[in-house]
């Protein structure tokens, strides 16, 4: 099971985490920390526990998700939620685990000695993604994101989409025709 948890305490305060953290610096992205079986965002106080995929794989997957659908105003947490289904599916289906682990390993090889997240600029990473665009691995990740990312109710307000409206009586008294600049 993958759990995304809000970290109430600071990173040091989370019990059970060893100190052999491996720091991963995604080029343009925020700092993600690997600890045991978790990917942690110390700055933004959330963590993601993996069970089937390696946490390093998950961290790279999160960066890859952002590079496929980059929205600078959307925090990493939502990308993490969007890709966590791959860990769940990998737990049930060894073929899927293989697809993701090998796909990420391949991505790292193609990216040079510091791997995919070692590439500092989005353009550099996108150039690598372009090489694998047609692969089942890329399509599985991209396809999953279309619903996994954009169907999170929490991200809708970031885009100005208001979602459900029936319980509020529709928009008849809430601005269905409030445009003023025409």
């Amino acid at each position, binding site marked *: 099971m993958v759990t995304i948890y809000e970290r109430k305490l600071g990173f040091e305060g989370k019990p059970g985490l060893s100190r052999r953290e491996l720091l991963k610096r995604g080029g343009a992205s925020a700092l993600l920390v690997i600890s045991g079986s978790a990917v942690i965002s110390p700055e933004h106080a959330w963590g993601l526990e993996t069970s089937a995929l390696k946490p390093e794989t998950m961290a790279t997957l999160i960066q890859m998700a952002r590079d496929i659908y980059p929205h600078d105003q959307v925090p990493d947490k939502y990308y993490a939620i969007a890709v966590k289904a791959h860990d769940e599916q990998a737990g049930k289906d060894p073929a899927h685990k293989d697809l993701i682990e090998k796909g990420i390993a391949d991505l790292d090889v193609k990216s040079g000695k510091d791997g995919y997240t070692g590439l500092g600029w989005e353009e550099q990473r996108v150039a690598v993604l372009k090489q694998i665009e047609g692969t089942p691995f890329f399509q599985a990740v991209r396809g999953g994101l279309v619903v996994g990312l954009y169907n999170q109710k929490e991200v809708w307000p970031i885009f100005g989409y*208001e979602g459900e409206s*029936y319980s509020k009586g529709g928009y008849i008294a809430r601005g269905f*025709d409030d445009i003023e600049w025409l």
Partner: protein
Amino acid sequence: MAAPFDLKNDGVVVIIGSGAGGGTLGNELAQKGVDVVILEAGARHEYEDFINDEWDSFAQLAWTDKRTTSGDWRVAKDFPNLPAWIVKSVGGSTTHWAGASLRLQEHEFKTLSTYGKLEGATLLDWPITLAEMEPYYAKAEAKMGVTGTNDWPRLPGNNNFKVLKAGADKLGYKECHTGNMAINSVDRDDRNSCQQTGFCFQGCKWRAKWSTLYAEIPKGEATGHLEVRPNAMAIKINHDASGKVTGVVYADKDGKLQEQKARIVAVAGNSIESPRLLLNSASSKFPDGLANSSGQVGKNYMRHTTGSVYAIFDKPVHMYRGTTMAGIIRDEARHDPSRGFVGGYEFETLSLGLPFMAAFLDPGGWGRSFTTALDHYDHMAGLWIVGEDMPRAENRITLHADMKDEHGMPIADVHFDDHANDTAMRNHAYKQGSALYAAVGATRTFPTPPYPSTHNLGTNRMSEKAADGVVNKHGQSHDIKNLFVSDGSQFTTGGAENPTLTIVSLAIRQAEYIAGQMSAKSI
């Protein structure tokens, strides 16, 4: 009270499908005292159960049984197993539909005579004219509460409409308004008026929008002459030695096969399932499928020439607020070959929520070009192009050679290639649509490819001569006189207009004919 009819009752009319065609026919017949059983593959979800959420609603209502696709249309690449966005639920696609209700134009009933022969197209005149249809259009508009008819006011324009209207004015378009919508603009028919909720595609929780689910079926049930049997998937239509149909085999809610006997069978499963069922009912007497002596069953599949144009502005629009499709420009709907194509198209307002926009704006697209479009979602306006597409013999529904559904019925393959006329029309519309938004100050426009088909037409076409089509002007099959087709698959050609008003009008007309033939004992 809903009347449960015995499986062995061979006096009933069995209708397959409870959507625009089947649901209307069922109620109309019941009102005339004819006993009717509607077999509906989907479950019954009442309006309270509808969900203001695009994917959840899709999961609740849409037809997601597997289909395959082929041909050069982009849907085959982007959505290989979802050629059509239609419904499997009581009420059929009238739960999802947007309510745009337009009459076909006079020349659209006579395309072969008007456009002339076109290479690669199987144009044909309808065996009925607009004049013959007019009284039925009037009845349908009255029944459905179509705005702009019968003194019902049009709906107020939402933000998306206002942008469209401003652009239409700039381009000099003359006929632009909030449409003829089967959506209550005032309380009527014991149903609410539109509350501008903006989830028309997800089922109207206010019942402001006409649907057979709550505007036809309960009235039919109240007569005691109509039974709607949900979770009943028709698989085969049986016939006797004389060739008359005698009953319908269906899988019930537990997957068990049952046979409902029938005096008359009317097929209304929408234009993919209706031919699938006729083809799957092949027998030694009818080796090519029922009603298929012409070989036309499944052919001439049409889906309208569609596409969308979305545009981003430097100021907010909030297009998703309010009635999804209440906005139209009709100036391009005329037949004017000087534009480089025959037939015409309509512009209608359209909006998708963020989740569907992500899925449909540029399927398969990724990277900043794609995401910067969504970043300005609340600054977007959108329109839909709906135009007449050319019927083609090769565009067709066939039974898959080896893939079968859970009941062992071969699944449908949907083949579609654009005709050059379709492509020319779409490109013209993209250009006009982009110019329209540019005229109001759009900073970026998106010619968006067609979605999985919402308008599915033509696969059991109506024809004067038995050799040219599947059914006559009453939707009665040329080959078997107690077998009818009652949905959009009867369309000889597609017209530029959204099809449902015509489907409903044909069903009202067909009910009169069937009841007349029954009392004359000729069927």
